[in-house]
């Protein structure tokens, strides 16, 4: 028995097997939920590289590695908090899917994506991580194609960006090994860093190669695309941290950090401006995601423990906020669809859903950084730290954050406009209330959350030191 088999192979295999249950959606979702909870519980209770004793005679050694064709999947004890988090996240998505309409294969794909994300974390050598990210992103494409709201260009652009990102980072990984042998070759070092940065620009959707991310988030149902986008972005940032942790020469290459801060600021300002002119909630959220990528890049580029914690906090918060946002979107869309279907069949329409603009506004500001939210202290601390290093950059960072806050006015206008339809009986989704309260609770119990974030950062001890 070993850890990668349990946390990589089992989710992948169960995802495939659950496809057989696709005609029994409820059973499939409950089984997937049970598997995720079980895997999360094992990650919580059984330390890797320990002996499990059954009764008095039988024992099982729970090893940390699995060899596949000369490559290894390795999971350490310090990665167990991340495993718990990822399986809990998957469990929350599955739980939410119980109350909304989903594609019949969506939960199976979600399970496989979770397995692939853990594969990305565990694979050695590091260069293989990018293939896991590529597979993770292209796996749900057929599902999204069926649910498209217009043409397929969003998916096509996504695939092209991922392939180009993999191409550049793949070659950069080979060059990195060459640089490790001869650090004095500055030309080679610069080219390697450049190749890597271009690769990350494609994978993270950094301006001017951001259109795939916006199109993906706007043209496809949020609940179908939310998990893929948030997990892909999290995985890419995790890969970036792994690269910084693994290669000493990159970690000590100051120009890279300056580059990350500069790219991050451009991204934040671009995302902020895009948000300012976005009147549709989906576009506004896509702009927020782009801008948040910028903030996280700035935080990583500041090269200190405090800012790295802020980056991880924002990444984790974004994963949770995307779930709630997608859930709100899908609940609204389902209610509208049920209403239209009932009218079409000449039946009495079901009670319509209450206007969720206020909830959207709240969720938007939880990530954008309103007081009492988890993001607020992190962003203020980031601003304060940057102001001591570079007042000009700090001003740009502050401007970008302000743009994001001001952009919420579009959601506020929707709230004030209200629902123009004829007043009918309204209902409220308790799931949304619980989800939003949980998000707010993260800000209230920030100290507790921070201790969890510190555990997620434990594998990056080289950067932290």
């Amino acid at each position, binding site marked *: 028995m070993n850890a990668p088999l349990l946390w990589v192979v089992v989710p992948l295999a169960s995802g495939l097997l659950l496809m057989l249950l696709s005609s029994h959606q409820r059973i499939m979702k409950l089984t997937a939920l049970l598997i995720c909870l079980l895997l999360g519980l094992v990650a919580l209770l059984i330390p890797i590289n320990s002996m499990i004793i059954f009764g008095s005679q039988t024992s099982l050694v729970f090893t940390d590695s699995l060899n*596949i*064709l*000369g*490559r290894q999947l390795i999971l350490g004890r310090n990665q167990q908090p991340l495993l718990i988090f990822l399986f809990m996240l998957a469990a929350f998505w599955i739980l939410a899917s119980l109350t909304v309409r989903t594609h019949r294969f969506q939960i199976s794909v979600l399970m496989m994506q979770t397995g692939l994300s853990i594969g990305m974390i565990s694979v050695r050598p590091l*260069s*293989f991580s990018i*293939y896991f990210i*590529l*597979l993770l992103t*292209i796996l749900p*494409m*057929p599902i999204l*194609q*069926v649910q498209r709201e217009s*043409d*397929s*260009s969003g*998916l*096509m652009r996504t*695939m*092209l960006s991922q*392939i*180009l990102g*993999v*191409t550049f980072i*793949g*070659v950069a990984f*080979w*060059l990195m090994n060459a640089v490790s042998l001869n650090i004095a070759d500055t030309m*080679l070092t610069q*080219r390697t860093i450049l190749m890597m940065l271009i690769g990350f620009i494609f994978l993270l959707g950094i301006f001017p190669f951001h259109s795939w991310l916006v199109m993906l988030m706007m043209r496809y149902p949020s609940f179908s695309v939310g998990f893929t986008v948030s997990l892909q972005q999290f995985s890419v940032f995790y890969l970036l941290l792994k690269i910084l942790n693994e290669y000493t020469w990159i970690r000590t290459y100051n120009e890279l950090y300056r580059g990350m801060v500069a790219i991050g600021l451009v991204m934040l300002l671009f995302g902020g401006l895009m948000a300012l002119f976005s009147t549709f909630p989906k576009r506004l959220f896509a702009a927020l995601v782009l801008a948040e990528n910028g903030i996280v890049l700035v935080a990583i580029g500041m090269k200190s423990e405090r800012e790295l914690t802020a980056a991880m906090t924002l990444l984790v918060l974004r994963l949770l906020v995307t779930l709630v946002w997608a859930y709100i979107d899908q609940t609204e869309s389902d209610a509208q669809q049920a209403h239209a279907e009932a009218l079409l069949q000449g039946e009495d329409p079901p009670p319509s859903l209450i206007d969720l603009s206020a909830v959207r506004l709240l969720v938007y500001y939880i990530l954008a950084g309103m007081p009492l939210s988890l993001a607020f202290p992190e962003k203020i601390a980031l601003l304060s730290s940057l102001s001591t290093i570079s007042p000009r950059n700090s001003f740009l960072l502050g401007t970008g954050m302000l743009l994001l806050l001001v952009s919420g006015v579009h959601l506020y206008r929707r709230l004030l406009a209200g629902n123009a339809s004829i007043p009918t009986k309204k209902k409220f989704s308790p799931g949304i209330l619980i989800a939003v309260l949980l998000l707010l609770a993260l800000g209230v119990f920030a100290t507790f959350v921070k201790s969890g974030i510190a555990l997620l950062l434990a594998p990056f001890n080289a950067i932290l030191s």
Partner: protein
Amino acid sequence: MQLPVTSLIGLGLISLGALIVFTQIDADDHRFNLVGYLLKYIGVILLVFRIFSIQKTVIILLVGIMTTVVLGTEEFRSGLPLQLPKLTVNHIMRVLISMILFVLTFTIEPMIARWIPIPDSILFAVLFLILLGLAEFSLTGSLLIRFLALISILLGYMLVMVFLEDATLTFAILIGTMMTIALIGANFISESQPAVVEIEVNEDLSE
């Protein structure tokens, strides 16, 4: 530099294949594009069969044939005879663009060869495949051409990585990814086509 005849023919076939796909990107009948795509693979085989093991060479050829079949089944279903397209100004312009890209690849190849140590002929083929793939992808909305372009870009990347790392697993992963993309492409193409209702003629009615 003296290139073996097979490598020269390989380079010629890759260029010809890419040219056929590129000039025919807006054609109604995509069978020429599929032939061009297959020519690229045959060119790659001729280029690498002296260097790669026989197994890898055969696998590349098989992947080329399989992706063509998977993506192009709908195109061959019609059974209409293949007709040579009429030469238009668009075709001439595209030939000119591909020639510019050909020269551009020739110009940048020596610079890149200084830090990516793979044979010049292979590097040229890789760069040409990637550049033409990008051009094909960006100049058309046709799903078939776009998927062929994506797979061509991945083929270029695979050739580089197999040379650099010499790892069977990398080769296997990339081959698997190319096949996955071909399957996704077939799914996209069939999804985007309007459903055809086949009406069966009831012969009993005539009696």
